[in-house]
């Protein structure tokens, strides 16, 4: 009898998993978006959907005067937070940091009573000029991407979110049209997967890059 109930519950759970979609918020920063071929390539892939919100910070707050309440409302309404940005000086453009400073407020996102983001997912989507090999102990950047973006990783952890591995587009200075196309379609696949709400987070986090997990799913 017990096993019957168990299997019944598992079926119910699985059904729920399939029907519950997730809302994805893309917090995007690029101070010179009009000049960025590769970011435009990625942004073009974002499906037009009620469940995916593309939020362009430099367009909303050119004066860096981020409206805390409005941003917090947006975060509350979504389940997956994507920080999409070019990799400037081993980090995000300045406005992204401003956003984190203002929006992830003490007592709201972290600290006592700061549970607004608990249980949500977060990840970075990055375009970087250098190739993947350059970001290693032996490479000229000396550190791996995962090391360099550990502040984001820990920010997510402090806010009790699950940090998913980053989606990275490397070598953007020398990207062929073919490579660009395939990266763009990978990004679309990722967004569709996240939106469906049906993804194995515990499997994803085992990978260094989200790209690696996607490659396993597709090929």
């Amino acid at each position, binding site marked *: 009898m017990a096993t019957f109930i168990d299997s019944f519950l598992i079926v119910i759970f699985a059904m729920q998993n399939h029907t519950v979609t997730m809302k994805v918020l893309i917090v995007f920063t690029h101070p010179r978006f*009009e000049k960025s071929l590769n970011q435009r390539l990625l942004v073009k892939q974002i499906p037009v959907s009620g469940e995916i919100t593309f939020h362009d910070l430099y367009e909303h707050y050119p004066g860096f005067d981020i409206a805390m309440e409005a941003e917090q409302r947006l975060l509350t309404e979504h389940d997956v937070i994507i920080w999409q940005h070019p990799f400037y000086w081993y980090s995000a453009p300045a406005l992204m940091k401003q956003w984190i*400073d203002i929006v992830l407020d*003490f007592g709201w996102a972290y*600290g006592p009573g700061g549970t607004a983001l608990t249980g949500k997912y977060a990840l970075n989507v990055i375009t970087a000029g250098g190739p993947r090999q350059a970001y290693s102990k032996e490479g000229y950047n000396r550190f791996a991407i995962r090391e360099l973006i550990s502040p984001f990783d820990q920010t997510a952890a402090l806010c009790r979110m699950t940090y998913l591995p980053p989606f990275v587009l490397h070598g953007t200075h020398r990207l062929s049209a073919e490579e660009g196309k395939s990266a763009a379609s990978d990004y679309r696949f990722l967004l569709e997967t996240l939106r469906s709400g049906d993804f194995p987070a515990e499997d994803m986090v085992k990978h260094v890059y989200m790209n690696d997990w996607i490659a396993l799913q597709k090929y």
Partner: protein
Amino acid sequence: MEFLSQAMIYLAAAVICVPVAKRLGMGSVLGYLLAGIVIGPFVLGFIGKEGQDIMHFAEFGVVMMLFLIGLELEPAQFWRLRRSILGLGSLQLGLTTFILFPAFLITGFAWQAALAVSLALAMSSTAIALQTVKEKGLSQTAAGQASFSVLLFQDIAVIPVLAILPLLAINASAAHGHTTFIDQFPGWVQTLALFLAVGIIYFAGRYLIVPLLRLIARTQLRELFTASSLFLVVAIATLMQLVGLSPALGAFLAGVVLANSEYRHELESDLQPFKGLLLGLFFIGVGASINFELIRTSPGTVFLLVAGIMLVKSFVLFLSGRIFRLKTDQNLLYTFALSQVGEFAFVLFSFTGQLGILSAEWTGTLMAATAITMTVTPFLLLLNEKVIDPRFGVKEKPDEREADIIEDRHKVIIAGFGHFGSTIGRFLRANGVEATILDNDSDRVELLRRMGFKVYYGDATRRDLLESAGAGEAKILVAAIDDPESNRNLASTVKKHFPHLRTLVRARSRMDAYDLIELGVNDIYRESLHTSIALGVDVLAGLGYRRYTALRQGQKFLHYDEKALAGMAAMRHDTKQYIIQARESFRLQEELLSRDLHQDLAGNDHSWDSETIRESLSGPIVE
């Protein structure tokens, strides 16, 4: 009384027939023609022979039209389209004339008559073609540009044609029916006088007319400016007639000379109604003088003429489109849009009739044929759109452009170039955006022109002036006039007549802003708001606040104030409530700000403020 009743008949006919014609998609030229036919001797018979006299008077409308064409001829645009204007234009006009000329010779015309008629028939209708292209939003397509080029070439070509016609007169006395003052002198004096007259127009345009207009503009009397515009054209026409040249040519020259002056748009909008009325009168006269007896007695001739003319014109147009590599769908559109005979033909026919080049009978027949080709055009275009184009055409999308490129055709109009507007103009110019600027302070306009700005004199709240400044095609209008009431009028004019145009409006005070909100204006800029907040921020900094904290307070204040403004505008009609609301709003503002600052931004944010964290006993400290 005779004059009044006459005027009443003409105006009534126009007022009834033109809207009906427009409704049916036929354009105003056909409406006027229809009006003339209805009141003419063959239908209602309200007017008889005097139709001819009216036409003499109305021909002055043609002179005005050429003045305006000259005025609108932008050298830059002409240069950009020079290849298609000269190439396509001369090809179309030349080839059509070349084919029609022998055809009429065979029909039994004298060579002079054949040439005059061929030239007249080669013209297309600017009024019909450009109107259609504009209405369908195709001005920027290849077909639109090609049509524009050909029509412009024809407009210019009319001038030499008008000049040649008298030379073709078979009956010399008819040509010189009215002897001019200059005829008594020997030939070389006449030639000299001719050059002198052209020279006078050029120099007067440069050094006499513009300063004169400036003087008149300074009086701020609108009707005086209108009077001087009219005087200008009449004087030029008289001068030209005196030396025996075509008044149209003189007017065109004067227009070109004045095209670069700051009074271009003002002159344009002042003369436009006169031109429209006179041309309307002219077409009514044409309609009244179409001889329907002829059509009834020989319908075959008229039908053959219409079919033959349109076939030849279409063939030449399609061929020229091919040579200039228009895509098939564009070429079809261009061909059908220009396949009719234009209003200039009426002008030319009436001249040829007067000069005795052509018999009255043929003049009548040809005018009837011309009117029929014009009537047919809208139906042909419809046929093309619905049947021919879907089968053969390859669609060219009108807007496949890169997003970054800002078109150099002026998309911004700045009304009012005082200290407020001029800063905007300078800023835009620094970013490579040239705006069309309107201002009605003639001294300022003169000064700014010397500084190299493209400024036009005129009252920007007038719809006609806005129209000629390009409000129909512009994207953004900046209302930056010094007087708040004028800005308000401007905003409501734009809302009513150019609803597509985004209007950014300068407001002097809160009260102005409320009025503008009531008008439905979304983009309101209170002129002192940003400056006073910037000053306030500096005051805070001067008192020892950290600069960035002061700046953030300023930014927050701005947001709050904008919100409060919108909230209060809705309350304004109930005065009592407004006062309460205003007081409440200011109280709230004060409270919010002091709370922001002195209570560690409580209820707002604690960004970069570790004190709150320290005060909080539990919880991780991140620093």
